[in-house]
């Protein structure tokens, strides 16, 4: 059942990468350096988030984390919404951990959780490193329309830790973040399926 979920999405990923490969063959001469670089970044991020194996690893880690959270909260009386928030934060943290700190949003997620836990406000503020934005912010020139600007700001707010990031970096981070989110959704769906299918059976086939 879960297997059926994973391979289908893997093929979708393959299809898109194949179409990209075809496009590349056709317009090989027309590709500029920038396109090559961006494509490389995209392929890296896709390799990280699209493979079955990564998904399974994530699902297992998530399960583990959930179980531990569950154990920790069995003592307290937690409502569903609160538990949902916890679970979501756990899931995000596990996702960020599996990114291995190469992306800004993953570092921001981990940093924010650490910050909340230890309640130290000044610690992680330097982590994200604004030095990049200082260099690139001075280069902002005319072509940015105000409409596009607003949307880029919104996007920056959506992707964690990317408010003051340069436009090309923001787009890179968004690419990786979208791929990671898709994987997260798939894995959580699979997990939820597993567990919800298990639940009604408890009444029927008890120990």
């Amino acid at each position: 059942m879960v297997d059926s979920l994973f391979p289908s999405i893997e093929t979708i990923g393959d299809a898109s990468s194949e179409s990209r490969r075809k496009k590349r063959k056709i317009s090989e001469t027309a590709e500029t350096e920038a396109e090559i670089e961006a494509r490389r970044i995209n392929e890296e991020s896709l390799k990280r988030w699209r493979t079955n194996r990564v998904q399974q690893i994530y699902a297992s880690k998530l399960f583990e984390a959930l179980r531990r959270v569950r154990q920790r909260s069995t003592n307290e009386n937690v409502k569903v919404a609160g538990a949902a928030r916890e679970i979501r934060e756990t899931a995000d943290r596990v996702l960020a951990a599996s990114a291995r700190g190469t992306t800004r949003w993953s570092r921001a997620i981990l940093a924010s959780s650490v910050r909340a836990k230890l309640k130290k406000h000044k610690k992680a503020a330097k982590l994200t490193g604004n030095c990049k934005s200082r260099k690139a912010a001075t280069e902002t020139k005319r072509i940015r329309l105000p409409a596009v600007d607003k949307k880029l700001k919104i996007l920056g707010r959506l992707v964690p830790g990317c408010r003051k990031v340069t436009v090309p970096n923001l787009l890179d981070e968004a690419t990786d973040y979208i791929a990671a989110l898709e994987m997260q959704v798939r894995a959580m769906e699979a997990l939820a399926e597993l567990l919800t299918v298990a639940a009604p059976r408890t009444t029927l086939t008890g120990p």
Partner: protein
Amino acid sequence: MDLTGGLVARSGSGGMCRESTGLESLHLVDEFRQLVTLPSENAGGSFTALLELPATQAVELLHFTDSSSSQAAVNGIGGDIAPPPLHSFGTLTFPSNSALMERAARFSVIATEQHNGNVSGETTTSSVPSNSSANLDRIKTEPAETDSSQRLISDQIPCPIQNNRSGKRKDFEKKVRSSTKKTKSSEENEKLPYVHVRARRGQATDSHSLAERARREKINARMKLLQELVPGCDKIQGTALVLDEIINHVQSLQRQVEMLSMRLAAVNPRIDFNLDTILASENGSLMDGSFNGTAMQLAWPHQAIETEQSFHHRQLQPPPPHQWPFDGLNQPVWGREEDQGHGNEHNNLMAVSENVMVGSANLLHPNQVKTEL
């Protein structure tokens, strides 16, 4: 043409330089002296003999012109300076060409009749303008004439060097913009290795615009990739709408995560994460019901590896495409485990979780474990 008529009229008088108007007299005088001395050495009276001297000189001048103009093109901020004069060459080629043809005809006539003065005068006048073309800020007629004279010479004398140079000049004229852009961009590339831009024909070559273009290309490339990633963005035109789609997609994904987390939270309290229930759900028909969770012992890790290997032998279901990193998962997880008095049961739950993980990939594995135990 007036010039031609004037020249012809003056030819008999050995007139110097009607065309000296507008030229610096110094050049003229020098050239004239050179040309006066040289043709005296030459014995030929034919036109080709005539043209030998000016040919060689024209070759030099051509070279000089070429080099000077190319230098000017490269050094200047753009090909902006270079193209206009060269363009004027092109536009003014025809009328002066005809004039020079006429003059050439007369040269031949004159050469046969007389030797020194007129010939030198004519050649002087023809060569002097070519010299003057080296300075690009001359009157346009003269450079034009020079150009045409050079072309004429190149047409008549099959000198390989000359042909190459004229060919180069033509190519240069045609592609002056792209070449200057390329040289300029290549120069820039050498200086600033991180600017990887190949400027195209007909585009400006300011450093500002180059950087701007590089930046824009980067952003556009990334937008294209995002478009491919987000479903339904391929057909949309315009950055703003594509960004809209991307934002919607991200928001929907985040909302899905929230929904799923709520679902998981709702599921959690009902299940005790017990091996029985989970396995029962997965292996409905295959479950024996005789499974005993407490039967698992601390030897689980070894058994786990065994069972996985044994699974390969008995394949009731097709194996998953990717094997779980079983060993890799076991050790760190157990290392992280905090035992709080659950003891054996805790380990069982650990094993259960591992089992479930494997089960999610391969439904039959827990069943195998069961039968083994």
